[in-house]
């Protein structure tokens, strides 16, 4: 842990100098991030490493926030940031001990990362597939320590992987909780589906039943449920608390944001503001029970609980976002879901979605589809877009699969912050939804 030697008590005392009233919110955010990438075959330079650490100090007073961020963890950088957010030297500044993030660990074994592309190619060969492929695999590690005058939670650490494939007919990619044979299979399966549908005609526009595989359901839930219930999104259309108690989805939908239930390397006990995370029931039997909120919004209403703040790096303020969504499983097998959707579409992957926070319209793009025939899955089809209003689409969920899978819902880019988002979801059946 890079911040294990950080004198958090001294930092907390220094932050306390900025507090002028009980409503003031003050915190310091120390972070370290590392990305290691193995580039596509033959592409210089070879192994690529990004190592990044720094700090940010924040003061929120009434409706005004002040943030100062630095690319360095040191006493000087912290004191300067403190002065900038105070916009004056604090009245009495206790001397601070030296601050630092500790040395970077010695280089660890990158062999699994380097072998991952070869594993994918091997998997493709086993499926008798070969096509030009530029595959980049990255390992991401992140450590953070939040300190506020009243609160010093445990330091947090995360590790995950991402991949991106440039193909002659487009790009494909995703997030992985871990590397290994299962991950290679997952990447190869996605690439094979993309290859098979590369020249396929898109499905005819119309209203058809849809079966979303767990990976596609993960993206759908992130875009349609999580984004719709982020307090900053809700505030664009009115009072966020007004969403509580509203029926947003069908009775079969139980959706929980639960960062503490994530796989071990992603698991969190506190959010990016240092607040304890909780199992946050966004939808219980389709009804909104809680929304995603951070400390800034929680100051304004007791109905809003903090603990869902995230920030992609220190140079941006935290914002309410989901981290690990769970859609509780139903009872249907995939075969039963497909049997209930003859003539419909099976969607095994989803790309980017868009939610209009003011009008409520929603769209989600799928890179390819597959026809559902009487005898099961039929021919591959090209890209298509699911369109509708969020509540209308969520109320069209008529069955939920029994078998859940952990899936990366992808990189969320809302508000200029690029954050990895995750979900644990089963397959879903949507009755008669509009596809173009």
């Amino acid at each position, binding site marked *: 842990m890079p911040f294990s030697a950080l004198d958090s008590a001294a930092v907390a005392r220094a932050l306390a100098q900025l507090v002028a009233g009980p409503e003031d919110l003050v915190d310091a955010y120390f972070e370290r991030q590392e990305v290691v990438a193995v580039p596509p075959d033959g592409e210089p*330079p070879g192994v690529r490493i990004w*190592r990044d650490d720094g700090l940010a100090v924040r003061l929120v007073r009434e409706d005004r926030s*002040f943030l100062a961020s630095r*690319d360095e963890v040191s006493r000087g950088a912290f004191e300067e*940031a403190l002065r900038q957010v105070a*916009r004056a030297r604090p009245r009495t500044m206790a001397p601070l001990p030296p601050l630092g993030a500790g040395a970077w660990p010695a280089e660890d074994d990158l062999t699994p990362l380097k072998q991952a592309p070869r594993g994918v190619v091997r998997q493709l060969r086993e499926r008798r597939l070969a096509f030009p492929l530029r595959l980049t695999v990255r390992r991401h590690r992140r450590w953070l320590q939040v300190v506020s005058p009243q609160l010093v939670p445990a330091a947090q650490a995360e590790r995950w992987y991402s991949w991106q494939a440039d193909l002659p007919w487009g790009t494909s990619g995703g997030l992985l909780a871990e590397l290994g044979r299962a991950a290679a299979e997952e990447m190869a399966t996605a690439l094979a589906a993309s290859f098979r549908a590369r020249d396929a005609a898109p499905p005819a526009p119309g209203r058809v039943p849809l079966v979303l595989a767990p990976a596609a359901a993960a993206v759908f839930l992130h875009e349609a449920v999580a984004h719709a219930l982020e307090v900053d999104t809700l505030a664009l259309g009115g009072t966020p608390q007004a969403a509580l108690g509203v029926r947003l989805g069908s009775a079969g939908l139980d959706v929980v944001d639960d960062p503490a239930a994530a796989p071990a390397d992603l698991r969190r006990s506190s959010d990016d503001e240092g607040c304890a995370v909780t199992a946050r029931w966004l939808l219980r039997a389709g009804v909104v029970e809680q929304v995603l909120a951070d400390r800034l919004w929680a100051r304004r209403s007791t109905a809003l609980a903090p603990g869902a703040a995230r920030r992609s790096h220190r140079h941006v303020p935290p914002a309410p976002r989901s981290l690990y969504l769970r859609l509780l499983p139903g009872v249907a097998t995939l075969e039963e879901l497909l049997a209930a959707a003859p003539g419909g579409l099976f969607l095994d992957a989803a790309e980017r979605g868009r939610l209009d926070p003011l009008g409520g319209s929603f769209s989600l793009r799928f890179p390819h589809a597959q026809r559902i025939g009487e005898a099961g899955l039929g021919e591959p089809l090209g890209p298509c877009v699911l369109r509708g209003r969020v509540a209308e689409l969520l109320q069209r969920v008529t069955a939920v699969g029994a078998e859940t899978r952990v899936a990366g819902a992808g990189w969320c880019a809302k508000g200029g912050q690029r954050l990895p988002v995750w979900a644990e979801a089963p397959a879903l059946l949507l009755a008669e939804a509009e596809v173009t």
Partner: protein
Amino acid sequence: MNDLDRAEEVLEQLAGGGGDAEVYLKEGRGRRFSLSPEGELCHFVQEQGWAVRAGDGRCSFFVAASGPPRPRGPWPEPDGYPLRLPDAVEPAPWREPAEVESPLLGEREGVALLAAIAEALARELPGARLRGALLEDGSSVSTLASTQGVRARWRQRLAALRLLARRGDSPVEVSLERAEREARRFHPGALASALADRLAAVDAGAPPPRDRGDMVLAPPVVARLLAHLAPLWLGPEAAERAAALGERTRLAAAAVTLVDDGRLPEGLLSAPVDGEGVPTREVVLIEAGGFRQPLVAWWQRGAWQSSGCAARPSWRDLPLPGPTHLYLRPDPAVRAGALLAAISRGYYLLDTRGPGWCDLRTGRFALPVCGFAIRDGRAQAPLGAAWLVGGVAALLRGIQAVARDLAFSSLGGMIGAPTVVATGLEVRRAPG
């Protein structure tokens, strides 16, 4: 010790291992001011980082990190890919823009500027209000040194503004983006007027299901289209792509001359060298409608003339060929108003409402736009939330005239265009 000395120190340590190496340092300071439903934010940011590329004909590595450079590493084991770096070439004489010396916007100035825009908007269009704003004012210093003899240091200054506005309880909002050398050049009245035009264009109108006509495209619309098309002109394969789009000698209408220039006078990203230390220059990609040459980096040049076009927006980024100031050359003799006045039936599209999409494989694009229907040279009715839909080849061949009002948008490099008149495109209610 200055930045170049620091870079030299790192090179010295790396040179001990043999092979080639390059050190890139970047420092920046900035102020950000934003208005949003969360309230008002004032952000003071200081960034500092460095990157090293090192290797030989067999293997190499890339390391980037925040803070001051660490000459003694530790450096990772080079991997199985070769590295080539450009030889040093003396750039043409360069004069730094005067604005790099001017102080960044102060807290009160930033907040006052946003408040002034909000007040001007409310005056310009009753019921209109600023729903969000982000103002950034920053400066940076980049330093580059390599074992090939490259030694370069350049400074840049950039201010960017993004505004979001709504009228009353309308569910439609519009945005406006502008960039300048420094934030003090933003004029609240002009910005409010541009926002009011856009709100008026989307608020009351209902776009036709599908219609053609002469399209007068304002600079932000053309810039967005050019940004979508930019990959077509990159790399040695661009010649084949251009050939596939039409006859090689007449790829586009005669009014189309497309240029990229990394040292454009008054250009916001202008610098004497690119992210690899290669001198920047003007490159004409399409001249009077005919394909002339692609945009290629030094290591891609082949039969083409290369230019310093390796973009390196931050110390985290590997240098990547791309446009710096890519623009459609304006016609200094033509006023935008004259183009508009000559339209008997068509549309004047003011701005985009989002990025839209362009599929370069199928050659089709759709842009969400706002604007007005035009009859006999005058705005007849707002168009509402419409889409501009068409084909890439038809767009390039359909540009009939260009005006002189060149303006740039920040779209992954600065992309610029004047107002143009285009035919062969459609306005639709939905992207289709």
